[in-house]
């Protein structure tokens, strides 16, 4: 291959990569600009600039209650998922038992069952047993949805854990429960925190299933945003999106500073 053709390929390759990166960032970019539009329409690019939609988004009652409901649902759902998923991950890693693969497949099944199916299922079930559409239904639904991610995260951490550290602790006189508290859990902490954080972000963002199982009193932020956009088309939603992105980014930066993102996402080889 001649040198000039080589160069042409290099330039074309660079352009393709840049285009892909551009498309990944494009929606966030468009929404961010639209949020600063002074006019009460969702348009791009804006003609005049304003902060007023941020003020409106922060003041809007349904968004405020949706945010609060979201925190409640997310807090409970990701914590319960962490306990349940962590326990199952431990059992799957450490013990051999009947139907192990089947149980694992069932726990991971919400990855392939559509969210609206799960939401609809819980809606029918709740109606059938006469359960009011309170937080319990939403939380249980979210636990099912985020469980596979927690399970995987903790499982990978357990796989990476050097079992000789636990043996060393036992040899030095630590009973099994003290091995767990002083060695296993501290070393799993990044994986547990990563699993919880992933579950929390997924749960807080979840829309499809939440649409079925929430009521006016329990609607989460994405559901509130959907209900809003059905009636209004001003840039409040775009402003809320910007706040959302900023808050999530801040959360990840803090998590990274304390725990290391590489460890959280289990992409770094453990020493």
């Amino acid at each position: 291959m001649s040198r000039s053709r080589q160069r042409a390929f290099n330039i074309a390759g660079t352009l393709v990569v840049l285009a892909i990166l551009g498309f990944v960032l494009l929606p966030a970019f468009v929404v961010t600009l639209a949020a600063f539009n002074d006019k009460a329409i969702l348009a791009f690019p804006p003609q005049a600039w304003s902060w007023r939609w941020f003020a409106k988004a922060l003041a809007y009652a349904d968004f405020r209650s949706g945010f609060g409901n979201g925190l409640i649902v997310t807090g409970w759902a990701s914590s319960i998922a962490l306990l349940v998923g962590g326990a199952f991950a431990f059992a799957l890693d450490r013990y051999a038992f009947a139907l192990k693969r089947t149980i694992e497949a069932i726990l991971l099944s919400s990855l392939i069952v559509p969210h609206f199916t799960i939401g609809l299922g819980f809606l029918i079930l709740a109606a059938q047993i006469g359960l009011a559409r309170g937080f319990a239904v939403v939380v249980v639904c979210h636990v099912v949805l985020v469980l596979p991610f927690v399970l995987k995260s903790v499982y990978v951490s357990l796989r990476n854990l050097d079992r000789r550290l636990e043996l060393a602790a036992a040899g030095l006189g630590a009973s099994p429960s003290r091995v767990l508290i002083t060695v296993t859990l501290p070393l799993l902490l990044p994986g547990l925190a990563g699993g919880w954080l992933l579950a929390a972000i997924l749960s807080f963002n979840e829309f499809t299933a939440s649409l079925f199982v929430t009521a006016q009193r329990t609607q989460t932020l994405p559901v509130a945003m959907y209900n809003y956009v059905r009636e209004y088309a001003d840039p409040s939603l775009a402003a809320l999106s910007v706040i959302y992105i900023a808050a999530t980014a801040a959360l990840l930066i803090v998590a990274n500073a304390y725990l290391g993102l590489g460890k959280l996402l289990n992409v770094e080889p453990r020493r």
Partner: protein
Amino acid sequence: MSSLAAERQPRLASQAAAETTGGTGIAVNLRGITKTFGEVHALKDATLSVHRGELMTLLGPSGCGKSTLLNLIAGFLTPDRGELEIDGHRVNDTPPYKREIGMVFQNYALFPHMSAADNVGYGLRMRRLAKHEVARRVADALALVRLSGIENRRPHQLSGGQQQRVALARALVISPKVLLLDEPLSALDRSLRASMQVEIKEIQHQLGVTTIFVTHDQSEALSLSDRIAVMFDGQIRQIGTPAEIYRRPSDRCVASFVGDVNVLRARLGSIDETTATISLGAQIIPVAMGPLAGSKPGDPADLFVRPEQLRLSGTGEPGAAQGTVSTHIYQGGHVDLYVRSPVAVGGRLLVRSPEPDAITRWPIGAVVGVTVSGADAMAFPPQDDKP
């Protein structure tokens, strides 16, 4: 260091008392230990007694069962059959955390989320010692392994040698009944390994702690051990002092694995109860009869000779074999000469000469006679495959 040594004294005294009141000097006793993993027989009927204060090495190639044996003593595995005693008590069903053993792992297994001092103090905290007592003993233990001033560093901030010392201090600080070392030096570079060997031996001697050391490195085993147990295929083939193992190996596996050895094809001469003779070239070489049991005069036999027990001479002199010098390897303290000879299994003999002028005296291509000197030659029945 003083207090660690001092704390050993009462124990040693009580041990002495136990011995006089009918106890034994055996710290670890294994009888007929068998362990299988699925189809694999990791250990077959292993029997071994380790004396108090002794440094016993389990030596063998990888997969010979030595690490399995160590893990059984530590309690990380349980035997399928056999009895396991520590300090005269059966511990088959005792979990590791009640066995009072100190173990140093091959990768050290230091807790990455704890400082060096917290690593060393871990066993003491598990024994619920008072904080100041833990601090004092940790400082003593770190001083013992000559590693003060790194207390607050995490394991990943320490060099390999330092990690090794922390691991050793962590195992010793609990005054274990037995110290178990699983190839602790294999990750260190050569010069560090040599100095750590000396240091481990000194510390072990100073504390008088019964130690079981696992290695596949025969020279490490020879230089460190009070006694060596050589293992092959899940079996203990021979137990003895380094000199016994080196000079009187029980079979050809042990002879080949421990130290360098030349194997020469020969025939049995005369035989009596305890000794036999091998005739090789013009030489008649006496060997022990033991390993040759069942052989008759005139049967083929393989003669095993250490390289330092072969001498070169000019041609024409009557010797055991003739050959051609093919390679010199200068080793500093001695010279290794390789001699092509049809008598040798593998076609080459290794002759170790302490004389530095051997290289000029026996240049490459020189035709030489080879003589067996010394009384440590051994003979084993031949086998089809190479040793």
